[in-house]
């Protein structure tokens, strides 16, 4: 699988271990990624909630840059992914708006570009079989819950299969040898950027997600979004805390990559003791 790649700002900063593990792990499981040049911030929630054309033009520039690669665009951050998909949906259905945005951006915007989230990469049978065959350090008997957050919503725009019970992370965890039972927190909201303005709200949401995870007999959840990860990593109040780990870090660990030590050091809740205590 060959993909163009938009990391987004978080993967170079607060979610650096996500960016590092995406770049290190994907080539090992048959996914070739090529970063688009000179990309900009997608605007995140602050774009589409303050000015309509700002919220459309910032992601439109990213789409224009990706068009040159002639490949589907991989976006690992759910925030960026949803902004890009929604922009595409609006521009595709409104030629006048598309023309206006192209004029503001000064570039041709490809309304038909295929935009993919990381969880969709794990719907590919070849990728999954490479994880399975490469897992030198499988998570035998370890329970890890897939946590998708809001990546599939709304289904009509995001286009990911089984929106209220998606499967990409489950497939990856399964291939890495982990137990991944169904659990009710799978697509619950983490509170996203309210972490900066209403910490109390986010604390209540993540404590509920952690409670659901504990009730499902797990101590680890697999994430695929910098906001889900950061909120679970920094905003849990109740003990014992659930350990959130990016799916790419988990796959890297299972593949026997020792870079996991660098990645785990960047977490607030250090997963290393838990992982190093696992039977080899």
């Amino acid at each position, binding site marked *: 699988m060959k993909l163009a790649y938009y990391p987004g700002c978080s993967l170079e900063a607060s979610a650096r271990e996500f960016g590092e593990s995406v770049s290190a792990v994907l080539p090992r499981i048959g996914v070739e990624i090529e970063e688009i040049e000179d990309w900009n*911030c997608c605007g995140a929630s602050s774009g589409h909630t303050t*000015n*309509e*054309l700002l919220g459309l033009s910032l992601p439109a520039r990213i789409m224009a840059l990706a068009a040159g690669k002639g490949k589907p665009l991989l976006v690992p951050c759910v925030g960026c992914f949803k902004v890009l998909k929604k922009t595409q949906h609006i521009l595709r259905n409104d030629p006048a708006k598309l023309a206006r945005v192209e004029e503001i951006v000064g570039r041709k915007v490809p309304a038909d570009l295929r935009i993919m989230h990381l969880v969709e990469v794990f719907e590919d049978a070849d990728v999954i079989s490479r994880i399975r065959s490469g897992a030198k350090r499988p998570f035998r008997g370890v329970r890890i819950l897939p946590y998708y*957050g809001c990546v599939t919503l709304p289904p009509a725009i995001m286009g990911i299969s089984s929106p209220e019970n998606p499967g990409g992370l489950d497939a990856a965890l399964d291939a890495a040898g982990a137990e991944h039972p169904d659990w009710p927190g799978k697509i619950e909201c983490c509170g996203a950027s309210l972490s900066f303005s*209403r910490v109390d709200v986010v604390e209540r949401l993540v404590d509920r997600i952690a409670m659901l995870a504990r009730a499902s007999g797990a101590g680890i959840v697999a994430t695929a979004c910098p906001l889900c990860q950061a909120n679970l990593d920094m905003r849990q109040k109740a003990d014992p805390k659930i350990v959130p780990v990016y799916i790419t870090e988990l796959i890297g660990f299972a593949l026997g990559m020792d870079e996991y030590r660098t990645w785990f050091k960047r977490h607030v809740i250090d997963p290393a003791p838990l992982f190093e205590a696992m039977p080899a």
Partner: protein
Amino acid sequence: MQTCRKISVGGAGLAADPDFKAEMRAASGTDFGLCFQCMTCTLGCPLAWAMDHPPNEIVRLVQLGLADEVLSSKSIQICSACETCVTRCPNGIEIANLVDALRIRAFERDLPTREPAVRKFHRSFLGGFRNYGRLHEMRFVMMLKLRTLNLFQDVWVGIRMFLKGKFSILPHKIKGRDEVKEIFRRTIDSP
């Protein structure tokens, strides 16, 4: 738990704006007239408990033209755009688009809000990348602290993030930063 605000239509300070409904219909592109108040949106909303008007009431307030009440609400700022409501609405109303249209109106006119911290967040976030093209988290967090005066909140988190190599002191400036500035100039800076 947030308590819902009780309002009585026609009461003091709750005059209806006769044009508001049509304006929001155009701005949101969704036909919220189809709402029959089944409350599915509110039942699934992960943040309804923190709102002063749950999603079904937001729709009703817009239908009634009660612009001031809905535009100053906590709800339109608290919504995290997870779109569970849009997913489940039996009538296909894109409530998240309506909420975006409402918060854009409130932001553009800098209207009073019962949830000021969220707007301070958005201003700081935009300021954190408009000159560079990519978000400079250090600048964004500093701007947010100055705006909210929550100077000591999360200081330890910030220091740890810095030590873990997640916050850089200098911004990453993209080559096309003038293109990004131009986008700001032609959108949010233009009346």
